[in-house]
């Protein structure tokens, strides 16, 4: 009786028409010790299904919380730096402004001349070096003959 039922179920099973409940019935039947000899070959199949279901994933999952850099905090930091700058910066500028003065006009004049001379001296050093540029110019004009030669040779080889 039971066997008859199982055989019917097996047929349905092979046509893919069994419900999950009926499949469970089949599984239960084939998990028994003794089953009908002509159905013996189904046993490993259902046994395998039950075994495979027990396999588990053992490796850990490295869930990194990606820290997304929040750019709005940059503006906050910038404002803070600016405020600090204004707060601490001001007295320093005032100090730099006050460099002291000469009381005697003659002495002041001498000092100005001295520093202007210093500036012009170092400026002249620079211009001396720039004068090489003239030589470069003449060099370039000589090279330009080459291009003329090239056009000539093109004409010849044509």
């Amino acid at each position, binding site marked *: 009786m039971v066997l008859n039922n199982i055989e019917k179920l097996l047929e349905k*099973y*092979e*046509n*893919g*028409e069994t419900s*999950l409940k009926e*499949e469970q019935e089949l599984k239960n039947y084939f998990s028994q010790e003794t089953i009908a000899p002509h159905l*013996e*070959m*189904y*046993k*490993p*199949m259902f*046994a*395998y*299904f039950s*075994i*495979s*279901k027990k*396999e*588990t*994933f*053992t*490796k850990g*999952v*490295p*869930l990194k*919380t*990606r820290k997304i850099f929040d750019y709005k905090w940059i503006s906050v930091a910038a404002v803070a730096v600016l405020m600090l700058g204004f707060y601490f910066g001001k007295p320093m500028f005032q100090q730099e402004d006050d460099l002291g003065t000469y009381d005697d006009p003659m002495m002041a004049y001498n000092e100005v001349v001295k520093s202007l001379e210093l500036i012009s001296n170092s400026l002249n050093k620079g211009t001396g070096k720039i004068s090489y540029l003239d030589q470069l110019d003449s060099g370039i004009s000589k090279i330009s003959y080459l291009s003329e030669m090239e056009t000539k040779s093109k004409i010849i080889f044509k």
Partner: protein
Amino acid sequence: MTQAEFLNIVMPFKDKVFRLAKRLLVSREEAEDATQEILLKLWNNKTKIGEYKNVEAFSMTMTKNFCLDKLKSKHAQNLKIVHSNYQDHNTSLQKQIELNDSVNWVAKIIENLPEQQKMVIQLRDIEQYDLDEIAKMLDMNNTAVRVALSRARKSIREQLTNTHSYGTK
């Protein structure tokens, strides 16, 4: 979403993802890597997780696509060599060993099925999903799933019958 909330969603089906991956990729290591990859993808898209109707079905589809891609790519060449073509001639051993052996046979038979049938067998006979759910996961229609399932079951039974009667006839 916090890590704990995410894990609560993912934990119930991570093994299913792993088993499907293993069914397709065969080697355990590959399947583990694939599972990690899938879970990480889910985690990275965790803001969208609420939009999915069924996270589990969605993950299974993802797994399927991921593994099939992997099989297509060169990466599959790194598969661990398993004894898929090893033949056993010790048919006349004790019953217990025989059973154990034939259980391994089932694994080998399934391994040689086409990918689609493998997945259907995995999802139905091992994970016990509804046919409709399977259809959704695999982007197939209901009848196609049924047909694939029927073919897979028949071919497993046929091959088992052959090995079972091996040496007796």
